[in-house]
């Protein structure tokens, strides 16, 4: 009885998840290299397969089926800083973290204490052999093809890999991890980096706001269904039918 209650409740939970995604996107409106996450929903039918066709919809539940990131890249903004790089749409920079390899789109690189190339959190940037790039002493510079120079000396070539939605999970702090399967990521031979630029977050605030309103209204609709079921349908069932 009252399966519509559970359908509506599942809808409320799904909309709540959607709101949480939107809030995270809005919180990262200034995070370089961030890509907004969107969600898609799926419908579970439960026991409905055995029910007659006209009753199937009544037994459904809705849930978030998955999250995916909006395609990038975001706008590349000129910064004039030699060690800022904007990445191509599908590229990620490989770095060494405490927990194995990480991958990032945050292209604000710097030179660390020992002359090594590091990312914004101090993780060493890796070369195509998987070793940290070092030897930057005077005039560090990055070329569009990923080669790193100190003045006129080439000190290494950055490892840039292709984004793979099946393998990469977001680990926070603008990092992705490949769930222990680093070898499966395809390195880009001609990465086409843009030195002197930083990538703005991809995903526009307008659609975030529209989705926010949508989630809020949908949540309200589900709430109305529950209130109506509890207050009206059940009351009338008890009073009008049973009271006869």
């Amino acid at each position, binding site marked *: 009885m009252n399966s519509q209650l559970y359908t509506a409740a599942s809808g409320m939970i799904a909309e709540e998840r959607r709101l949480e995604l939107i809030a995270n996107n809005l919180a990262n409106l200034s995070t370089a290299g961030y890509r907004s996450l969107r969600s898609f929903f799926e419908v579970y039918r439960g026991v409905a397969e055995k029910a007659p066709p006209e009753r199937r919809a009544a037994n459904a539940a809705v849930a978030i089926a998955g999250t995916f990131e909006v395609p990038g890249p975001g706008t590349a903004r000129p910064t004039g800083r030699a060690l800022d790089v904007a990445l191509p749409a599908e590229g990620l920079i490989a770095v060494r973290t405490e927990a194995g390899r990480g991958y990032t789109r945050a292209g604000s690189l710097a030179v660390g204490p020992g002359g090594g190339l590091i990312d914004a959190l101090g993780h060493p940037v890796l070369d195509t052999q998987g070793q940290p790039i070092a030897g930057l002493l005077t005039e560090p510079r990055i070329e569009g093809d990923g080669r790193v120079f100190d003045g006129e000396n080439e000190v290494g070539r950055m490892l840039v890999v292709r984004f793979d939605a099946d393998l990469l999970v977001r680990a926070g702090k603008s990092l992705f991890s490949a769930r222990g399967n680093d070898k499966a990521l395809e390195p880009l031979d001609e990465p086409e980096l843009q030195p002197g630029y930083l990538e703005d977050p991809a995903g526009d605030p307008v659609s975030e706001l529209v989705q*926010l309103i949508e989630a809020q209204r949908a949540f309200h609709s589900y709430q109305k269904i529950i209130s109506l079921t509890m207050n009206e349908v059940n009351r009338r069932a008890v009073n009008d039918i049973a009271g006869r």
Partner: protein
Amino acid sequence: MQRAMWSAASGMQAQQVQIDTIAHNLANVNTNGFKRSRAEFQDLLYQTLRAPGASSSSVTRNPAGIQLGMGSRTGSIKKLFSQGDVRKTDNPLDLTIQGQGFLKVLMPDGALAYTRDGAFTANAEGQLVNFQGYPLDPPITLPPDALTITVGADGTVSVTQPGQSTPTEVGQVELANFVNPSGLLSLGGNLLQPTEASGTAVDGTPGLDGLGTLSQGFLEISNVSIVNELVNMIAAQRAYDLNTRAIRAADEMMQQLNNMIR
């Protein structure tokens, strides 16, 4: 909903840091040798409700995972060492570095501080000092009867004295450079101090080894672009607005939940 609220709150904090940074840049638009800062943000942790590529049956896989983020955080505030605007002052003791490098001054505690502020004056002993009275390093002392003072592009300081037809060299201005100037620590008073992150100072002669040259009679002001700062400020303000909107949405949804049971 709790998650949404905390995410949005972290977004508001980030935009607040953004505005603070912009305000500091704008306040120093006319500060000699000032370098603008840039706030950099990162996303916070993620809750992975379902990993991407997980199997949905023995032959099929989920097309996407479910990851919920927890907001953003301030990663760092970086100083950007691009060349600042240059103002002509005609004061012979005003120096501008064209290119990379820092001037060195000796602080009272004996440590060296580094600066792009090239406004020097001579103290009672004729020694070149900055506006706090800290002497330039290596020290340069002008003779009391100096008529004209010339600072060459390579940093040589020479003076002409009464009764002499050729100028006399009295000192040499040195510059220092760092492999990672963004890692320098700001001391206030236009002074910077080396840290572990900046690396050690590499001293040199102006114009050599990638160091900039000196221009006498000019002062380097800040590298703050008012237009850019204002555009960034508007963007930050709107982003702040949007985050409050997310909090309000979460709040209203919770209110509706509470109203369900009466």
